[in-house]
């Protein structure tokens, strides 16, 4: 919303402040000013001049030499503009003055452009005639300005006058951010009311003269109005203007329209736009001669109706779109855009003005479905005050008379059910003070309310809310109004006195914090990737057509296929991030992510999905499967998980078939790890490097985690260790040997470790040489050789059963 300060001041005549003061004060009282544009910021010494004489430049074909009367003298100006003629009145910037920009209308330089005396191809020039672009404006709001040429003033403009004044540029346009609850502030009057309340000055509403009272012809003689779908239209005011004289609007109106970025067109169109800006009530004008049956009917369209709007486009309608119709046909889409069949042309003589109140939600949804969002629909969709419709209509008709552009008929046709009454809120000054932490007197509060046109009913103790303040409903709203005008900055700064339990992280978060620490100690940096991805990911990961991971939640309105499903595995983000690093030639990159995956119970989704955090480790460069396995085990031991980890060879398609494992604890899968399949690497543009990943399902880990530790004492009796050297069939895994040692070792077994593994020449075909060291300890005594031998015998027998040969 852009509005000129001059327009605001018209209704707050006592307002005196600098632009910056206005911006700061309005922002602090709740009407946020995003910024302002002082229109004459870089305009200086610009006057109205009249061209008296034009001669050819002696040395340049494209230049002419003009003698220009600037009121008190005649100066010589050389110009290349194509459109100059003797007698024209033009804006002239004098030497030593400034313009805002170049004639090409490009971005405006911060400090403008200074104009100096000079010579053009040897001929003296003492100033410059300007285009609207050079004045910082555009043909968008000065449609009459010539393309690539000097602006020409109307003939009655006074020579020597301040041209900046003539243009209306001694003004500042403020840009506001209006919050969605303040429908009333999408209007000059609404903002003026706020300005008046903020600066505690008087608000003077525009004087609206009664129109058409003396006319014998009544609007109701000419037209009847019927609202069929009252749920979508709570009020429809129609009024007829005859004997229309289309012409230009006066300067003051054009200036104000331009300040809001609206292009002046002709007096009738300008009046509807002007009233929309001023009252925040969109209006529409129909050519009365096109309306069949002297009738307006407001009703829903039929499914499949096609309608041509006044911009010549065909629009497809459905049964939820509200239409304005005459006795035979549809003539406008309510609140969005009128029809081509009833639009105002330059030949119009009779016209029907419409000011109506439509259901905001319906307009918003219709505009979206039709794909046509207009200035009018943008305002209607916020839900307007029905009282405003008649006020706006009367204002428009008063302007018609004031501008002398038509004869307004007597009275309006105003169709509505009961209009909303003024709401009441109980005035509770003590509660307000308690709520805000302030000590403001009740009188002071009432004074703030009076500035806002909120009355106080002494008898009932109620605040009576004007209908345009639809946002004021209950106690909290009343407290906000007090806070705004008392000043948020003046409200004290305190800390809550009440006590609460101590702050803390949840157990899950503590486990995740340990995961982050371990990963970082192991050299992995934290990554964050998107939760949504493309369904193509499944192909990149070589997942089978029927793989359960493909059952992913789909977003019904995604930003595109690449962001269309919720991830069911954390690999794509990790691999994509690794690939980014790899392709930027970062060496040896290690990343981890605590990535949430979203597992639907069934599809389409009925219940919320299971959101599971996956600790995902990934790297390329130095390291291998076993260094990654080490990180996993350090993490598991650090969080005090009960049970020993076991590994089983896995068969996940995205991993190397011979280099992957399921991570198992007490028979339950915690996750998986392995080398990424070379084809998957290729799919992620990492061909030729080995990439390793490990994924741990955090919810399962959290279940098994404990931060409780108990000191078990330091062993008093010595440990005894024995080495076992064996020749093992190749297909027997270390895990199988571990299992035998564990199972047979009994309670004396303290620890064991593989310390040598060899396959090669000295070992017979199909076998490998493996050596373990096993240690035993008894907490209660020093172990004898006999004790140890007995256990060792059991272990060795177990190993023999696996087909293992023991070496001496």
């Amino acid at each position: 919303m852009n509005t000129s300060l001059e327009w605001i001041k018209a209704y707050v005549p006592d307002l005196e402040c600098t632009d910056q003061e206005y911006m700061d004060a309005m922002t602090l009282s709740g009407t946020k000013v995003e910024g302002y544009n002082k229109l004459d910021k870089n305009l200086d010494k610009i006057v109205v001049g009249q061209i008296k004489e034009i001669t050819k430049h002696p040395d340049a074909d494209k230049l002419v030499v003009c003698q220009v009367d600037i009121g008190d003298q005649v100066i010589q100006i050389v110009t290349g503009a194509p459109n100059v003629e003797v007698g024209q009145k033009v804006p002239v910037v004098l030497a030593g003055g400034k313009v805002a920009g170049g004639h090409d209308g490009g971005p405006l330089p911060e400090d403008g452009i200074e104009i100096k005396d000079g010579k053009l191809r040897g001929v003296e020039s003492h100033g410059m005639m300007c285009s609207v672009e050079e004045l910082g404006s555009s043909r968008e709001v000065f449609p009459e300005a010539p393309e690539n040429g000097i602006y020409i003033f109307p003939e009655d403009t006074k020579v020597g006058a301040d041209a900046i004044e003539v243009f209306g540029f001694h003004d500042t346009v403020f840009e506001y951010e209006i919050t969605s609850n303040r429908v009333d502030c999408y209007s000059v009057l609404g903002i003026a009311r706020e300005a008046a309340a903020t600066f505690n000055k008087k608000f003077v509403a525009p004087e609206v003269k009664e129109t058409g009272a003396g006319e014998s012809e009544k609007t109701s003689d000419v037209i009847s109005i019927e609202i069929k779908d009252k749920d979508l239209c709570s009020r429809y005011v129609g009024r007829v203007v005859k004997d229309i004289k289309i012409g230009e609007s006066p300067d003051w109106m054009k200036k104000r329209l331009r300040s809001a970025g609206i292009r002046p067109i002709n007096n009738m169109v300008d009046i509807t736009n002007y009233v929309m800006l001023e009252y925040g009530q969109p209006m529409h004008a129909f050519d009365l001669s096109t309306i069949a049956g002297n009738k307006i009917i407001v009703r829903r369209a039929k499914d499949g109706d096609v309608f041509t709007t006044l911009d010549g486009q065909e629009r497809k309608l459905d049964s939820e779109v509200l239409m304005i119709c005459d006795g035979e046909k549809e003539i406008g889409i309510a609140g969005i855009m009128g029809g081509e069949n009833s639009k105002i042309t330059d030949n119009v003589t009779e016209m029907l003005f419409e000011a109506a109140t439509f259901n905001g939600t319906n307009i918003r949804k219709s505009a979206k479905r039709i794909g046509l969002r207009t200035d009018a629909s943008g305002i209607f969709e916020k839900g307007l005050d029905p009282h405003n419709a008649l006020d706006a209509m009367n204002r428009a008709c008063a302007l018609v008379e004031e501008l002398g552009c038509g004869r307004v008929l007597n009275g309006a046709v105003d169709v509505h059910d009961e209009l909303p009454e003024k709401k009441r809120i109980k005035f509770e000054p003590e509660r307000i003070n308690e709520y805000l932490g302030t000590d403001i007197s009740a009188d002071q509060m009432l004074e703030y309310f009076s500035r806002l046109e909120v009355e106080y009913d002494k008898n009932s103790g109620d605040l009576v809310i004007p209908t345009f303040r639809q946002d004021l409903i209950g106690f909290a709203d009343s407290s906000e109004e007090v806070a705004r005008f008392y000043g948020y900055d003046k409200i004290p700064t305190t800390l809550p006195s009440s006590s609460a339990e101590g702050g803390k992280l949840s157990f899950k978060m503590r486990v995740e914090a340990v995961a982050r620490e371990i990963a970082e100690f192991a050299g992995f940096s934290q990554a964050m990737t998107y939760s949504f991805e493309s369904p193509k990911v499944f192909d990149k990961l070589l997942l089978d057509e029927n793989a359960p991971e493909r059952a992913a939640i789909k977003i019904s309105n995604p930003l595109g296929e690449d962001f269309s499903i919720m991830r069911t595995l954390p690999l794509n983000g990790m691999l994509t991030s690794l690939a980014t690093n790899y392709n930027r030639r970062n060496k040896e990159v290690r990343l981890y992510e605590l990535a949430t995956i979203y597992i639907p119970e069934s599809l389409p989704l009925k219940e919320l999905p299971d959101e599971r955090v996956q600790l995902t480790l990934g790297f390329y460069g130095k390291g291998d499967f076993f260094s990654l396995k080490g990180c996993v085990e350090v993490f598991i031991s650090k969080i005090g998980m009960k049970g020993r980890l076991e590994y089983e060879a896995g068969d996940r398609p995205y991993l190397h078939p011979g280099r992957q494992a399921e991570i198992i604890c007490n028979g339950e899968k915690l996750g998986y790890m392995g080398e990424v399949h070379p084809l998957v690497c290729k799919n992620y543009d990492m061909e030729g490097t080995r990439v390793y990943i490990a994924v741990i399902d955090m919810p399962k880990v959290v279940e098994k985690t404990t931060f409780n530790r108990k000191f078990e004492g330091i062993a008093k009796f010595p440990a005894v260790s024995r080495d076992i050297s064996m020749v093992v069939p190749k297909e027997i895994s270390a895990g199988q040997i571990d299992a035998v040692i564990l199972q047979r070792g009994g309670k004396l077994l303290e620890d064991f470790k593989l310390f040598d593994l060899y396959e090669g020449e000295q070992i017979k075909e199909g076998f490998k040489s493996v050596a373990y060291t096993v240690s035993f300890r008894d907490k209660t005594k020093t172990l004898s050789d006999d004790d140890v031998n007995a256990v060792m015998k059991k272990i060795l027998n177990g190993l023999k059963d696996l087909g293992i040969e023991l070496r001496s």
Partner: protein
Amino acid sequence: MIKETLEKIKSEAQARIKDSANLEDLNDVRVKFLGKKGELTAVLKGMKDVAAEERPKVGAVVNEAREEIEEALNNARLALEKSVMENKLKNEKIDVTLPAKKPILGHRHPNQIALEEIERIFIGLGYEVVEGPEVERDYYNFEALNIPADHPAKDEQDTFYITDDILLRTQTSGTQVHEMEKGRLPIRMISPGRVFRSDEVDATHSPSFHQVEGLLIDKEVSFSDLKGTLAEFAKELFGADTKVKFRPHHFPFTEPSAEMDVSCFKCGGKGCRFCKGEGWIEILGCGMVHPHVLEMSKIDPLQYKGFAFGVGLERIALLKYEIDDMRLLYENDERFLKQF
């Protein structure tokens, strides 16, 4: 006679000790004078020729001499050992300016660092950290927060929908509702988490980002407490000199509502390129929990009041670490992550 012999032995021993260049020489001296076949032993052996009544006296004198020699030997040994050690250390000198051998540590994501800072501050103020679902029901994301079915705010937030009823949450505020519904009062909680809005990716937008929601519900709470709490937060986060400014704003679930600006920590509020010349930087939205929101969660607004706030985590991270492009946060380029 013996005395003279002893004097001679002593002075000779002293001289030999003095001449010893190393520990071996010194040992030779010890053997020569104090050893089993040494000169002093020889003197003791000659005791048999001494009259019985003289023997204790002579014995004492011999022992005295022995002690003297031993002490001298000892001192000489210590001095030699010291010089040996000094020499050894001298030879072990290293160039301490040679490069360090660093353990390779990973780096934490700037979002995470910012989050942990925020968590630290609020845990210190007695807030519990809780989480809520990212895939959420419409009711918790909108309706229970005073944004009914046809409210325009639903459009403003550009929601990703899964079904008519299930969506990707657009704000962490839904966690407020989950906490209030538990019926355990008072409440002091913050809730960090991922949120989603359908914004195209660019330097300042991302369809997925993080918020930290805060909620306090108690019997005696006021807007001034909200101001105080958040002013404290800003000082902890951005430095003790940080000033805050509260501007009225509108959120459907709070009333009165405000946006909080902090004085630019780069220029101290004078205005610079960083704060676009304004001296202030917008940081968060906040307000008193709307009584209607309390009611919907079965909390009596006449008995209880509360305040809530929501901070954009990325916004804090970008500002605090002066990161100029949001996309960097999700690319995970090691050269970026390494800087944190």
